[in-house]
Every structure is written in structure tokens, then in C-alpha cells.
């Protein structure tokens, strides 16, 4: 085996003063560079695809990649932010850990938005950042950035590897931490000299992090108590979040809900955890949730929260949220318990395990009166929009739903189209709705869709990947189109173009006396069809309702590259119903009011 000894910055020699390696080294382990250890560790971890961008600090890794041809695909993204979002999309679509590899300095800082997004939305990703050699750290060296420091508040954990002999173990721990418990992003900072130095390779099977405890089963007394509370309740509601999707608990949740006749409302990230066409499904709750889901929350006597964190977009004004409800909170992250809403019965544990523990205790209940009451709310204020000759985003989303029959992985960006997708797509399966919820990152959708497509391809799934984006957010990471095109990913990208930052515009109309400050994009929007073509994708356009189906049909004919479908929609449309920020959930605006009628 050939090694370039001239590039070694700090070879590790026998008799070095460094501490003994903690890991056991088998006799047949051969010495290899830190860069190769990184690649071999990823192979051992079962990584099939990584999203990366080379640079000086990680040049050795890319060099070794070419030499040893590891058993995973490296996707060269065109911006590191796109890479982190792609890793998120991959992770959310597959349930596996997404991997990102970038260089030091700007490479690292460009990943920060994606890392913060993954942190807020509990997405397991591991980000490897290059770093200047250890002897230069702190010297303001070229492309130096304290990546650990910059990302400290937005990572689940981070590591700086100072010794090549710690590298494999650190990577093992990074994946373990990212994947288990409440998932989240982990950053591993790799100084260049560590990547150059040599050590024997051994990938540890066991992880032992003494301060890191992953909750699993819930306490049996709490389970019994929860079961009694459910049995005693007359108006129970399941409030289901992304934790149910993360722990693959949809099946057991569905069984319990159906056995006991408990209606289910989901958060934005919970969409798909319970089939939305089921009679017990209340759809999404919260700021842009359905009227009936929010009414059910306001009138219920028991909330069974599973894998949800009582976000302010769900609760609105806390004091008046669910005033009659007792709360059972099933949650894997102890810091979420009683943070915003007091839990009368808190069960710390993995949602799936806890629901499985709970299931034998659940007896059939008669909730027909309660369900009938919810039905009257359902009829009182259904989701609706105008059907005329103007094109509206809701119509496009319903057409996409019809085209796919709900068998598609749908990714959205952030804004009005995101809420309309949540309202109108009627998700049936977990992991088919992927969005940026917590951080609300514009520019998330398209690169995440690319990542999801890699994930589905790896799993041999034939589900189409549909990205619904807005004209504002799409442009923010449009450069990744070229990557998706190069990899022949048949993404279906719907750009809902209202020539405005629609959600901000909506708030300006409702709460800022129609002062549309800097939200008009008509001067700065590109020609989306030409943009698509410039990136070797297919560009299509529809500007009236009767063109929509033709465009979708044409788009679904394309199988070897992404299609960008621009839908020119009216700019005045607003997302309703809506609980204004800080208002009580009971005070929903259900339709457009004249500006003066809302104070």
C-alpha cells in the first residue's frame, strides 16, 4: 500500500508521548491515513451516500476517496447549505443518518443553517468539517473557523478530533448520538494533520458514552396511570408529532386510536403518521391547522401528546390553550416535558415502545358523541378556496394529490405553499411529508428533495419525489438543480409563483395595514422555465387552472431528469384558517376579512 509520506504533518510514531489508544487493535489491523479511516468508518457505519464539497482542509479525504473507491456514493453539491439540506431530506425519507463532508472555514459556516434546521426538527445528520492543522488552530489561519464554537448552540453534540487514533471511535459515537434518543445533528471537526496522520483502523462495535442515556421503555406505573386517564376521559384527543414518525410508531398509534375511538390530530411534522383520510383523523392543528382540530383541542378533556413538543405555532397563547384538558405526554427528550404545557402524566421513553406498552391496557371506548361534536365543527368550517378561472396554489396541490394518489414523498419549502400542502395534500404514510418546520428555512425544499430521492433510489422505492416550493425559497438553493440533473433524479418540482414572499405578504396585509415592504419579487424573479433549462432540467409553466393537468402529465412523462413546473398563481390568496401569532387557539380567523375589520 502506497502512502504519500511527504504530506504527513504529524506522523504518529511508536514511543510518542500521546496517550495509549483506548481501542483494542487486532493484529491484522493495518495502518492507514486518517482520511482513509474516515472513509472506512463510513463504510462500516453502512453509509451509502454522502453529500460533500471539497476544499483544502479535506483534500486528503477526497484524494483517498479516488484511490480506495469506498462503498458509498459521494454527491458533489454546489453549495454546502444544499448539502446539509440534502442530508436532511435523505435522513427524513429513509430514517437513516444523513452524512455531509465539507472543508474548513466557509465550508463549515455554510452548513450552519442546515445544521440548525436539523437541530430544530430532530433530523439525524453527521457533518464532517475540515479544520486547519492542530498547530494552527487559533492562529487565524487561512480558512480557519471555530466550527465547534459556531455550531455549539445548534448541534446535539460535536467533536474535535485531535488524535488520529480517536477518529474511528469518534465517528462511531457521532453516528450513535445522531441516530438515537431524540435525533439531531452532530458535527465532527477534523484537523488536516489528523487526516494525514496514520493509525491502525478498528471500528468499535460497542459505544460507551457514560453521560448519554437513551430512554426506551416508559415507567410501568406511569403507563398504568395513562391507561386509567384514557379510560376515564370522555373527550380524548391524540396530539401527534414528528417523534411518532422518527420512532416508526404509526402502526401502534393507529391501532390504539382505532381501538379506543380517539381522534388524532398531527403537527406539521406528524403529518403522515396517521392516515389523513381516516374518519378519526383531524388533520393538522395549530396556527394554520383545521378549525375542527383546534376546536377539538379547545374542548377536549384529555390530550395524549406523542412525540410532540407543544411548539408555539401549535399552542398559540398558552394560557388559553386546551383549558379543560389533562395532558399525557409521551416524549423521549426530557427537556420537552412540562416545558410549555404542564404534563399531568409524563412518560419518558421511546414513543413506539411506550405505545406498545400502553396498547394492552387500552379498552374499546364509546366516543361517538365526542366524534359527532367534532363532525359538526368539521362541517362548520371546511378547508375551502375559490374555484374560478384564476389559478390558486391550493388547486395545484390538490391536482398533485390526485396525480400521485398520495403515493409520493412530498417536500416543501417554507411559506404559504408549505401550509397549503399541509392542509390539502392529505398524507397517508409516514415519511412522505418532509419540511422545514422548526427553523423555517427557505431554500430547504429542493436540495432536501434531492437527498430524499437518493434515499428512495437506495431503497429501491418507485415513489415519486415531489418538491413544492415557492418562488422566494426555490431561488435560494436553485443551484442544486444541476446536481439533481447530473444524477438523473426525476424530481417533480412545483414552484408556486405568486411573485411575492407570500406569507410575509399575508402578515403585511393582515397586521401591517397592507404595507407591502420589500415582499414583491416580480422584479427579481428569474424566468423559471429558462432557469430549469439552464441547469439541464425540463421547465414547464401553467398560469390557469385548465393548464395544470397538462403540465403534470408532461412532467410525469420525464423520467431522466428533474422537471421544474412553474405555476403562476394569484398573489392575493391567503392561508386560512389562521390563529394570529400570540392569539388564543379558539380565536381563529377562518376567512378573509377586510383589513379594517381585524384589529
Amino acid at each position, binding site marked *: 500500500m502506497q502512502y504519500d509520506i511527504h504530506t504527513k504533518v504529524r506522523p504518529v510514531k511508536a514511543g510518542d508521548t500521546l496517550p495509549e489508544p483506548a481501542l483494542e487493535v487486532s493484529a491484522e489491523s493495518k495502518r492507514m491515513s486518517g482520511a482513509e479511516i474516515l472513509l472506512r468508518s463510513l463504510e462500516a457505519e453502512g453509509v451509502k451516500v454522502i453529500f460533500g464539497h471539497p476544499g483544502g482542509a479535506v483534500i486528503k479525504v477526497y484524494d483517498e476517496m479516488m484511490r480506495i473507491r469506498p462503498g458509498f456514493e459521494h454527491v458533489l453539491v454546489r453549495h454546502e447549505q444544499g448539502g446539509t439540506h440534502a442530508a436532511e431530506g435523505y435522513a427524513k425519507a429513509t430514517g437513516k443518518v444523513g452524512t455531509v463532508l465539507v472543508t474548513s472555514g466557509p465550508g463549515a459556516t455554510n452548513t450552519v443553517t442546515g445544521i440548525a434546521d436539523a437541530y430544530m426538527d430532530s433530523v439525524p445528520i453527521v457533518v464532517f468539517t475540515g479544520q486547519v492543522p492542530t498547530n494552527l488552530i487559533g492562529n487565524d489561519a487561512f480558512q480557519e473557523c471555530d466550527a465547534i464554537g459556531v455550531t*455549539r448552540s445548534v448541534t446535539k*453534540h460535536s467533536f*474535535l478530533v485531535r488524535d488520529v487514533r480517536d477518529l474511528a471511535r469518534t465517528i462511531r459515537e457521532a453516528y450513535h448520538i445522531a441516530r438515537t434518543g431524540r435525533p439531531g445533528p452532530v458535527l465532527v471537526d477534523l484537523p488536516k494533520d489528523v487526516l494525514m496522520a496514520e493509525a491502525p483502523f478498528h471500528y468499535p462495535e460497542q459505544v460507551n458514552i457514560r*453521560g*448519554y442515556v437513551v430512554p426506551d421503555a416508559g415507567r410501568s406505573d406511569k403507563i398504568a396511570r395513562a391507561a386509567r386517564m384514557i379510560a376515564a376521559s370522555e373527550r380524548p384527543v391524540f396530539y401527534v408529532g414528528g417523534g411518532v414518525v422518527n420512532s416508526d410508531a404509526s402502526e401502534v398509534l393507529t391501532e390504539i386510536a382505532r381501538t379506543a375511538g380517539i381522534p388524532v390530530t398531527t403537527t406539521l411534522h406528524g403529518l403522515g403518521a396517521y392516515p389523513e383520510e381516516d374518519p378519526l383523523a383531524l388533520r393538522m392543528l395549530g396556527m394554520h391547522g383545521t378549525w375542527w382540530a383546534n376546536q377539538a383541542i379547545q374542548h377536549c378533556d384529555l390530550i395524549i401528546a406523542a412525540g410532540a413538543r407543544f411548539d408555539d405555532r401549535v399552542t398559540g397563547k398558552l*394560557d388559553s*390553550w386546551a*383549558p379543560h384538558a389533562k395532558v399525557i405526554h409521551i416524549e423521549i427528550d*426530557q*427537556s420537552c416535558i412540562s416545558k410549555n404545557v404542564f404534563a399531568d402524566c409524563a412518560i419518558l421513553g421511546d414513543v413506539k415502545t411506550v405505545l406498545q406498552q400502553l396498547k394492552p391496557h387500552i379498552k374499546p371506548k364509546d366516543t361517538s358523541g365526542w366524534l359527532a361534536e367534532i363532525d359538526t365543527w368539521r362541517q362548520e368550517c371546511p378547508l375551502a378556496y375559490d374555484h374560478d378561472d384564476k389559478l390558486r396554489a391550493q388547486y395545484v396541490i390538490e391536482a398533485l394529490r390526485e396525480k400521485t394518489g398520495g403515493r409520493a414523498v412530498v417536500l416543501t419549502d417554507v411559506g404559504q405553499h408549505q401550509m397549503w400542502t399541509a392542509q390539502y395534500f392529505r398524507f397517508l404514510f409516514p415519511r412522505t411529508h418532509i419540511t422545514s418546520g422548526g427553523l423555517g428555512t427557505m431554500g430547504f425544499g429542493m436540495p432536501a428533495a434531492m437527498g430524499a430521492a437518493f434515499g428512495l433510489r437506495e431503497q429501491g422505492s418507485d415513489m415519486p419525489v415531489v418538491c413544492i416550493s415557492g418562488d422566494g425559497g426555490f431561488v435560494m438553493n436553485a443551484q442544486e438543480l444541476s446536481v439533481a440533473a447530473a444524477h438523473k433524479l426525476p424530481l417533480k418540482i412545483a414552484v408556486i409563483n405568486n411573485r411575492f414572499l407570500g406569507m410575509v405578504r399575508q402578515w403585511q396585509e393582515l397586521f401591517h395595514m397592507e404595507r407591502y415592504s420589500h415582499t414583491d419579487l416580480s422584479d427579481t424573479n428569474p424566468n423559471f422555465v429558462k432557469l430549469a433549462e439552464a441547469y439541464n432540467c425540463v421547465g414547464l409553466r401553467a398560469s390557469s387552472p385548465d393548464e395544470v393537468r397538462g403540465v403534470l402529465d408532461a412532467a410525469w412523462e420525464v423520467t431522466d431528469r428533474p422537471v421544474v413546473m412553474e405555476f403562476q398563481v394569484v398573489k392575493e390568496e391567503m392561508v386560512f384558517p389562521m390563529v394570529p401569532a400570540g392569539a388564543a387557539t379558539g380565536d381563529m380567523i377562518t376567512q378573509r376579512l377586510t383589513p379594517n375589520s381585524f384589529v
Partner: protein
Amino acid sequence: MSDTLVLTPQQIIRKKAAGEPIEPDDSQQKDRHTIVVLVENTIGAFIRVINMFSARGFNIDSVTVGTTEDASVSRMNIVTTGNGRIISQVLRQLSRLVDTIGVVDLTGTDYVERELCLLKVRYTDRSRSEILDTSGIFKGRIVDITSETMTIELRGPSKKVDAFVKLMAPHNIVEVARSGCVAMQRDHAA
């Protein structure tokens, strides 16, 4: 850790609706809490703990950190204030960090607390004996003296140090250095 430390706004509403009594200050009361955190003995672990306090808007009144009988473990003693709900959040957020090995809130338990204080005060002929008297009452030790200033070493619970510094305030204090408190639970084994 109890789930019922202090009422949330929503629970107060619920209690009001049910006509149950609510202590007027039970959600606003701010208590001083002494929390012991055992962390991995690395700079990164220490910073993560401190960073968590600042990122989540919790107070730190004092913090000390030092090694323990196990060289790989550091012990942090953190004094913070907040109502029960905030403290319970602090404890949960601390436990959640990967680098924390143990978290104990000593408040409400039987524990010993000590702080070291060095206080340099400028004296005159008139104030000299009063300063020495006060320092004697607090079992302070004069560790340095010049013709103008003296430096007093004092140890004890933070409250005692507070009281001493307060009594010295009318004199001409040059500087005060306080270590922050270290604390340990009393052992009740026979």
C-alpha cells in the same frame, strides 16, 4: 425530579376554573438553587454547560469548576435563580447534554456550602479597629497588610460572605475576589 414543581400558566387557569386555591406567588417565586453538575473533564464540556445557560436564557449567579477524585470528571457547582418550573427546565436541559454525567439540585437537601472570599480594604487609623473587629467576628484572616490596605481572607457559605462584604461596604473597599460556591451533600450514613 418531580413533575409538579410549580404550576404552568395553563394549569393555574385550570385551577382557577375549578375554584381551587392558588398561591399568589407560586409561579413567580424565584429561589436560589445550588446545582452540582458532573461533566467530562474537557473544556468543551464546560463550555457546553455554560452555553446552554446563555442560549436558553437562564441565570448564573456563580459557577465554579474543578477536578474530582476521578481525573476524567469535573465537578461544576452552579448557583442559579428561578422559579420551580425554570429550575426543572435547567435540570432537564443539563441532564440532556451528552457530556454531563450527573446532575443534582442540592437545594432543599442537607448540604454544606463554602465560598472563599478575598477582600482588600483601605483603612485609616479610625476604621482600622472596626475592620479588624468585624473580620474577627466572621473568623476572617488578615493575609496581607500594608500601611494603607489590608487583605482579608474569609470562607463560609455564600450568605456569610454576602453579609461580610455588605458590612465592609461603608469602608473603602479596593477590590473583592469571590470564588463562587462549592457544595456537597451531607452524608447521613450511620
